[in-house]
């Protein structure tokens, strides 16, 4: 058992990080499902979330968990405003090539936000205060309780979102739009307003992930790039637009990463997910969960 314990520790670590990536990937999935676009500034909402929670907990001296909720609220509002300002022309037939427009405008937004953060907050790496201190001893392995709490909150937010999507009126309306925008508009659903809400919801999940991982890693302007790329890999892996796919995909990426770190080399941690992406594109280009049905 003792020989296996480092591997087990890595595995649990992978699952914890994976559950937080799942939050980000689910955010991307919600945006993709409702608006049919890939948000290339997703990593920057992650960064904004981390900075907001850092300032709430460090500068204002409040409890880090409160910082997470402020971060969720702030990124939700910023996301909604950005959708209203930049993405509404997509649905008013003012744009000729929608894919291209959405890609370039969200990428431009990402360039702007990264460099704004560099100008405003400076390039320095900041370490956010941990959620809680101390370790949890499970006999075979020990875990830092801050990480475990982060994962528990991530799973809580994840379950809340799933509840909203599956059980509430808002979720039903979002699912309706994701299936057929015109038909749901005819049935009296305000697709425009719900589009903003969906983008805000997606953005605030990235913000929550940032606020949760800020204390684990460090907070700096380009911190969002690698997690964003991992969530891109996850949504391709789990079939774009599938919620189930996003959740299982993120766990798979977490496991593969931790096993790669354990068995091969820790320096290449961020590379393993790309290998999965290539394999998926080669053998199962539509992802593991088939088509892009939103509620499967």
């Amino acid at each position: 058992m003792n020989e296996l314990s480092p591997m087990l520790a890595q595995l649990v670590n992978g699952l914890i990080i994976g559950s937080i990536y799942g939050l980000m990937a689910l955010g991307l999935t919600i945006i993709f499902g409702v608006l049919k676009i890939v948000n290339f500034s997703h990593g920057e909402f992650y960064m904004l979330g981390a900075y907001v929670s850092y300032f709430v907990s460090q500068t204002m001296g409040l409890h880090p968990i409160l910082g997470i909720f402020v971060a969720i609220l702030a990124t939700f509002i910023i996301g909604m405003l950005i959708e209203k300002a930049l993405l509404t022309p997509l649905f008013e037939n003012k744009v000729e090539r929608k894919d291209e427009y959405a890609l370039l405008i969200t990428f431009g937004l990402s360039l702007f936000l990264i460099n704004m953060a560099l100008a405003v907050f400076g390039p320095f790496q900041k370490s956010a205060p941990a959620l809680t201190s101390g370790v949890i001893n499970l006999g075979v392995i020990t875990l830092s309780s801050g990480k475990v709490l982060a994962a528990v909150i991530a799973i809580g937010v994840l379950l809340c979102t799933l509840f909203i999507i599956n059980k509430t009126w808002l979720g039903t309306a979002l699912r309706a739009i994701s299936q057929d925008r015109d038909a749901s508009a005819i049935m009296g659903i305000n697709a425009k307003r719900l589009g903003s809400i969906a983008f805000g919801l997606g953005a605030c999940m990235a913000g929550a992930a940032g606020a949760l991982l800020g204390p684990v890693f460090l907070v700096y302007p380009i911190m969002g790039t690698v997690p964003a790329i991992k969530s891109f890999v996850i949504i391709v892996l789990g079939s774009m637009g599938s919620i189930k796919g996003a959740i299982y995909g993120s766990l798979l990426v977490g496991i593969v990463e931790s096993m790669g770190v354990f068995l091969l080399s820790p320096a290449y941690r961020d590379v393993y997910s790309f290998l999965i992406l290539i394999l998926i594109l080669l053998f199962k280009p539509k992802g593991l969960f088939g088509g892009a049905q939103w509620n499967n």
Partner: protein
Amino acid sequence: MEQLEKKMVLGLLLVALVLPLFANEYTLHIVILACFYVILSSSWNLLAGYSGQVSFAHMALASLGAYTSGLLSLKLGIHPVISMLCGSLVTGLVGMLIGILTLRMSGSYLALTTIAFSEIYRIVISLEYEITNGQVGLSVPGLFGESGSKVTYYYTAIALVVMIVLIGIQKLVKSDFGLTIRAIREDETAAAAMGTKVVRHKVIVFAISSAIAGLAGAFLAHYTLLVSPEMATITEMGIVISMSVIGGLGTFIGPLLGGVSLSLISEYVKEFGNYHLMVFGLILVLVMRFSPMGIAGVLASFGTRKRKETSVQQIKKEV
């Protein structure tokens, strides 16, 4: 628009010809950098503007060309001219592989895979310090021997490369092949229904534009005598995209104007810190939102308005 475009290209050509007579070495250095960006933004425009395939790996591919050429000339002692061509070839092949992997699917897949490729590529070359010398960068031999102060030589060489690349791209776009890729951009399904081999055409365009990027990267490597992972960052990619989009996607003159103006601006405001990148990002977003044709579109609408006014005046005279 065509008239205006011709006049501007001629004007730029004239400036380029007389520049070495008046400019000092520093100015020429900046112009060489501007030429590098013109090649990159024009070739990215061939891909994104004319065929509608948005790739985020263009700078990573340029850096791949730079490393291939640098390593070949350093380790095997091949003359930089040949190693640059090899670098370009390798980049074209890698571009083709990425294309085959992703271009079967819809547009977002290419963007998702290339952004992942670009970041992973950067991580790998920063880590493999035994081959690439890591973050420090690799010193490579120069294109024109050892001694410095040969800026005019480099200037002439890159000016030739720019001209060949631009003429080549223009010829390609105006040919039947160019018509086909523009048809694919407008409506893939319709183009496929007309019997066009959509995927094959997209892969070829991707390979060509990657090969051009590789050539540009290799040239820069043998000019600055250094290859570092810096070239492959997402920020650099953002600069090139800003140049094409602000200049005007899908136009010939756009990337040329965008490349020259943005690289000049970023060189002269460098001392004030990195604010120019924030401004470029903001302008990129605003251009996409309010004037998707960029500077070229503004110029074109200006031209047509002028023509309309003159025709209105003519009619008034006749009446």
